[in-house]
């Protein structure tokens, strides 16, 4: 199974029936494909609606219905559109239960960096700073290491932050880690991955409780 699929599948199983969920562009969007049968989540799109549905057939594209990445999507029955101020009133006001975002870097203090690399890449923060501040639960979906094998789970983020102390859970293809007041706790390892392997691939200090589970994907 593809790394991204492992991550998306694991996160999908965290979502609860009735949750209002905002999924970031890219990997986080894939989470929608794996939501278990019988669980209905309401997807919020920060460009102004709840009830985001799957991509339409090419001949059924409505140019006014796109997700926050600009890709054509659909609206499910019972959806609702609103303006950007209302959209972020929902987000900032704690009406979104879960947000799932990607990371350039994330650390054991719950800091997240995903909006710029000074001097190199400055896409902008879009709605990410509001999402990490306002959503009740912030889940980071990221591969454990960069293409060069460097850990993305750091002792301390080096890039400019998207949010300080905002992350609740980090899900990678190797592990599920929870940010706690005591530090970063390893909760699960992927099938076939050892605790030692996770520790070796993680720059942040990991607290290893006695009951580390095997990730179900």
């Amino acid at each position, binding site marked *: 199974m593809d790394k991204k699929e492992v991550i998306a599948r694991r996160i999908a199983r965290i979502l609860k029936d*009735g949750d*209002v969920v905002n999924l970031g562009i890219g990997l986080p969007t894939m989470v929608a494909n794996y939501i278990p049968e019988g669980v*209905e989540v*309401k997807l*919020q799109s920060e460009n102004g*609606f*709840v*009830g985001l549905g799957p991509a339409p057939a090419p001949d059924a594209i409505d140019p006014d219905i796109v997700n926050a990445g600009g890709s054509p999507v659909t*609206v499910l*029955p*019972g*959806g*609702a*559109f*609103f303006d950007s*101020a*209302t959209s*972020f*009133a*929902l*987000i*900032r*006001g*704690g*009406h979104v239960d879960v947000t799932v975002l990607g990371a350039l870097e994330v650390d054991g203090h719950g800091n997240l960096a995903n909006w710029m690399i000074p001097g190199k890449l400055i896409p902008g923060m879009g709605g990410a700073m509001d999402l990490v*501040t*306002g959503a009740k639960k912030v889940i980071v979906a990221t591969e454990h290491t960069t293409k060069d094998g460097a850990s993305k789970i750091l002792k301390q983020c080096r890039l400019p932050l998207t949010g300080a102390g905002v992350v609740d859970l980090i899900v990678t293809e190797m592990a599920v880690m929870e940010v706690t007041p005591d530090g970063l706790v390893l909760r699960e390892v992927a099938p076939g991955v050892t605790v030692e392997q996770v520790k070796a691939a993680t720059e942040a200090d990991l607290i290893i409780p006695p009951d580390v589970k095997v990730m179900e994907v």
Partner: protein
Amino acid sequence: MAKITTLEEAVCNIKDGMTIMVGGFLGVGSPLGLIDALVKKGTKDLTLICNDTAFPDRAVGKMVVNKQFKKIIVTHIGTNPETGRQMKAGELEVELVPQGTLAERIRAGGAGLGGFLTPTGLGTLAENGKKKIEVNGKTYLLELPIRADVALLRAAIADKKGNLTYRRAARNFNPLMAMAADLVIVEADKIVEIGDLDPDQVMTPGVVVDLIVPRAM
């Protein structure tokens, strides 16, 4: 998913001493059935957030007559002599707030804002106890957000996901309060199936609504 229930069950969620927000403007747009159920139940020591106290025989005015409030936060009490009587007798605490400020404070409460700066009330008693902040040479009052334990609203149409529309001047404070309470109870003139409301015409997205009761009268 919003749950459809009865007036009696809905008001069981309101306990003595709670803070409630009630939609309506001189009773227009108020959830009259929910209010009558509360009068019958006799819940007391409540704090009320509402535009006004309506009339002695109408809307929240009945609850004033029934002595169910220990404090009210409103913009106007002139239409209900009993409110003024209780205030003078020291039986009821009354906080008068400019109407635009009350609307904005409720909006801020629902939108996760820490407050806002308004020119309204400068040089008046509305200044009392408030911080003044100067921005670009102009002075403003810092007004703080306000929230409630329960919001009691009236809608024209609710679908079974809780999406709401309001009718004419009965809209007033209802959509703002829908965002600003821990529990949101709506008395709807009409309840329709999911998909019956055009997503463009929804005025309050269902994700913030908890309970719906059919209109009593």
